[in-house]
């Protein structure tokens, strides 16, 4: 059984904007998929449908054996699936005013209630796990700093540590590096895919840059105006195969692919910053 199954998914927003139509997708355990497309191609909507943040207009979504499209919004079943799906967001989604450590602790909310996760009441094993997660992303030394005092790259790494704390089987990353500079972005991508590799996580990562997309995962799925127009293994793909995703969307300058800065390389399993 695939980890993620999407059948004939369609989403039309109130006002008539068609974000997705007729999307079919099947992702196996441990598979790493890059979801590529211009802004407004429906990537984020697809990801949000996978965790029930958006209700599809029609079609079926199944994640880890649970049909997301048929469980109710506040049901225990939905919460249980969500607890197995770690999410990474473009804007990090960290709680301001709390320390990096406290933010990582909140990753355990799917299995532990909040009152057992505060600095005064947390169990020793949870505290140690949170520190280990921070250590894995190379940020144990800023555990007690408020997250808003950290740089963008550091904040996203704290968010990844929180995702680790969740002990997920699936990772959904929604434009994880879109608000970072190229160097920090590369660090975050190496870290994310390195972790996914060592824990055999299933990954779906949306991106809009061609060059980055060509460097990670096993499979590239291309979306254009809400429709799946490409679904191929990454091996053997070159930038020219992907350019068609953008060409007819040229009315939006932002959606142009970023210039290729370097030759794509396979992901490094370990990151220098994560090794201390």
């Amino acid at each position, binding site marked *: 059984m695939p980890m993620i199954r999407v059948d004939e998914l369609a989403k039309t927003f109130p006002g008539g904007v068609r974000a997705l139509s007729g999307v079919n997708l099947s992702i196996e355990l441990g598979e790493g998929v890059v979801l590529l497309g211009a802004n407004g191609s429906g990537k984020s909507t697809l990801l949000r449908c996978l965790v029930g*943040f958006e209700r599809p207009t029609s079609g079926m979504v199944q994640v880890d054996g649970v049909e997301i499209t048929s469980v109710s919004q506040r049901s225990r079943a939905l919460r249980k699936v969500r607890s197995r799906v*770690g*999410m990474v967001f473009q*804007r990090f*989604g960290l*709680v301001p005013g709390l320390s990096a450590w406290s933010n990582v602790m*909140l990753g355990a*909310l799917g299995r532990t209630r909040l009152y057992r996760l505060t600095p005064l009441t947390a169990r020793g094993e949870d505290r140690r796990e949170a520190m280990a997660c921070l250590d894995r992303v*190379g940020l144990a030394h800023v555990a007690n700093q408020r997250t808003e*005092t950290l740089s963008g790259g550091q904040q996203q790494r704290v968010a990844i540590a929180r995702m680790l704390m969740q002990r997920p089987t699936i990772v959904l990353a929604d434009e994880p590096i879109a608000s970072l500079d190229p160097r920090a972005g590369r660090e975050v991508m190496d870290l994310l895919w390195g972790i996914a590799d060592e824990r055999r996580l299933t990954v779906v990562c949306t991106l809009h840059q061609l060059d980055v997309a060509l460097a990670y995962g096993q499979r590239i799925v291309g979306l254009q105006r809400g429709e799946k127009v490409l679904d191929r293994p990454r091996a053997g793909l070159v930038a020219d195969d992907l350019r068609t995703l953008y060409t007819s969307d040229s009315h939006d300058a932002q959606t142009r692919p970023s210039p290729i800065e370097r030759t794509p390389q396979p992901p490094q399993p370990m990151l220098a910053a994560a090794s201390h």
Partner: protein
Amino acid sequence: MPVLTWAAWVVFLAVLIHGLMQARVTPWRLLRGVDNLGGFLAQAFPPDLSRLGSASWSMLETLQMALVGVTAGVVLSLPLAILCAANTSPHPLVRHATRTAVAIMRTVPDLIWALIFVIAVGLGPLAGILAIMMDTIGFCGRFFSERIEETSTGPAEALTATGAARSDVIFGAIIPEAMPSFVATSLYAVEKAIRSAVVLGLVGAGGIGVELSAAMDLWRYDQACTIILLILAVVIGAEHLSSHIRRKMLSPTQPHTQRA
């Protein structure tokens, strides 16, 4: 539209002129007023410090009324604000009910709350405390819920995505983000409460106001002067203290670390 505008102007001017006529503002009365004020000041200075001791005790009672009333009000405001705010309210009906209740507490002036509670629990500080509590809920309930509605959706969504319960999302993501603003609002509520606690004494709700109205009634303007100066000193002191704390609270506590 111009007709309506004209009508509005006519009504406004009519009310204004009628108001001035009712107040019977005449140069003669204003001159006499200045003369009376001079008489009051002549009797008020030098202030009679003999009652400073007992006035200080009443002042302390006033401060305690303010502090107890605000604390109770803030504690009750937080759950009400959560029920009021669009993004945390469990149901639109609950939201409208609590919003209306908070609006009533805010619209009724504190002096009227004090009059009501003097009837309910008798003369003394308890009536003042309850009046301040109602006033604080009206004030903090509204500002807390507005701040909750302004919190960013990102953190709440991120915690929802971990499978967290709704209440854990509220207390794990939304309340921590709004907390500095809650503290600042509460400190301002304390300032506000000290000022109103002074006045509440005038209707018998305890504190320094009782002393002041007694001194005024006995025409002991020198004693009244002592009390007014004391009030001035304490209110200014409290405002400085609270704005100092607010400034410290709102400035970032830790410097930006070196970039990774």
